[in-house]
């Protein structure tokens, strides 16, 4: 393909006039398709079963049944799953961002021979499907006595998210001016002090971006919890929701409330920090 413009006699701007209006309609319809299923979810989470079955899909009952939320929170074990998700996500995010910061500093600011090789290992790590590691990890955690122990989740999340976190941090670290280190060294500052006191605080904003991306991945993670955790009280929301729905098959209101609770933290982060999310996804632009 040549990057050369070619004049085309019939070439009329596709954005002109009525075309533009139609395009808008298509774009807005697409946005509606993305959001409507979630609106429907919110609506049926506020109905009881009878209302779900008898009322139109996009109508709300006279009395919103918020008790669905109360019920699943206290009776359905959802509170326990929620707390587990929060602390496992928080611990993994903190560990990952901290470890990745150390590595990224060494990779971008320090001089050593194996640097390209180590960077390569981390970047290739991003391509490895978690499913291909599942059986040996299961056996490994069993041998270490870590099966059915939330520590195995934190270790796995950290290991698998280090590559993308390093990738997000990398660009920012590379753009830091060399003068910072030079000045610090002149002042007789050691590397540790320089990193922890000067460089790390400067990377606050990119750390937040990396943390948000990590938070989304960890909060949503399913297959590790499903495989490595067997006790109900240790499970996180993704797997807990799955179990819960299996038990309350026909109670749509309860299922809707459970699903809403499980996605609410992510939606809140999205509404508050959507720019950071967009930035992080563009910088990491990997994983699915």
């Amino acid at each position, binding site marked *: 393909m040549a990057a050369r413009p070619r004049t085309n006699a019939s070439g009329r701007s596709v954005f002109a006039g009525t075309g533009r209006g139609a395009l808008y309609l298509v774009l807005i319809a697409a946005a509606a398709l993305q959001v409507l299923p979630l609106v429907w979810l919110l609506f049926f989470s506020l109905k009881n079963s009878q209302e779900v079955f008898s009322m139109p899909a996009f109508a709300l009952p006279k009395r919103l049944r918020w008790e669905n939320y109360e019920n699943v929170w206290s009776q359905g074990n959802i509170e326990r799953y929620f707390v587990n998700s929060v602390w496992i996500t928080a611990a993994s995010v903190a560990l990952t961002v901290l470890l990745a910061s150390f590595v990224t500093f060494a990779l971008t600011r320090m001089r050593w021979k194996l640097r390209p090789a180590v960077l390569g290992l981390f970047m290739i790590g991003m391509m490895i499907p978690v499913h291909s590691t599942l059986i040996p990890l299961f056996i490994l955690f069993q041998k270490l006595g870590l099966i059915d122990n939330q520590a195995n989740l934190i270790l796995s999340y950290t290991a698998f998210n280090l*590559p993308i976190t390093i990738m997000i941090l990398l660009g920012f670290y590379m753009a830091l001016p060399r003068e910072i280190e030079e000045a610090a060294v002149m002042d007789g500052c050691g590397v540790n002090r320089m990193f922890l006191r000067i460089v790390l605080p400067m990377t606050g904003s990119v750390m937040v971006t990396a943390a948000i991306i990590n938070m989304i991945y960890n909060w949503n993670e399913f297959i590790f919890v499903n495989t490595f955790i067997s006790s109900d009280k240790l499970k996180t929301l993704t797997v807990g929701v799955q179990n819960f729905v299996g038990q309350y098959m026909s109670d749509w209101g309860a299922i809707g409330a459970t699903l809403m609770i499980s996605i609410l933290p992510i939606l809140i982060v999205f509404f508050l920090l959507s720019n950071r999310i967009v930035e992080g996804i563009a910088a990491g632009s990997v994983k699915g």
Partner: protein
Amino acid sequence: MEKVMSNKRVIALYVLPSLLLLLGIVYVPIVLTGYYGLNDWDGIGKMTFIGLDNYARLLKDGVFWSSAGHSLLFALLSAVFLALYMAVALVLSGRIKGAQLLRKIYLIPMLLSSVAIAQLWLKIYHPTNGILNGLLESLGVEDTPDWLADPSIVLGALFVPILWQYAGFYILIYYAALKNIPASLTEAARIDGANSRQVALRIKLPLVREVVKVTIVLAVVGSLKYFDLIYVMTDGGPNQASEVMASYMYHKAFREFDYGYGSAIGFFLLLVCLVATWIIRRLTATKDPIQYS
């Protein structure tokens, strides 16, 4: 300066904890998966080395091939749909009001867990109370399908939520890449008399070629290893009509405790992902990558 910044002890201290974690949890298991795949093993008893027998079995296993076929179908379809996402991104990156808001709205499903998405779509597809069949009934369709129980349509029914989930992600990446193109290049073309469509196809598209390559790899490899949503929605059913490579591996290993065979499938999955990446890179290789800065 030089000496301080190449202090070996500090480098080891900074890098080794992460590197060991990566090796222990990502790389060593990959090697072990390869090794387990050469054994007959139920995970508890003694391992028996059987060489390539598991792979010979794989070659003759019809269910495995249909699973691999489904994964491949998802991969191809996902790659084809990238063209649509690019079209949307091209439109959004033109001077359109509300583009920022729209691309953020498109992104929402991608942020949610596959499990929540799967549960939601189970409800959407619900044969009697789901909104889809409700809509069809209100349009006068009498024989509404049971979307996830009918082997002939289940794959299509599963692919729709996958599209719904990932569309915004690709649109976002394309949009970011298109916005990165220096305005001077597109302005120059306009001055030379090019219209919007020509600018899009002849100037913008070639300039984001590298990003397109990355997204093709992402879409294909992501689809090849797709698991969560299918596991929750159909568990590979009905009658393995929607089984994919990862779900088949999971069933063999963690339901039938056939760890050796499961590992062989897992290792095969890894190889397929790596080979697919390599092939796509070869097919899309260009001799003179366009530089702009």
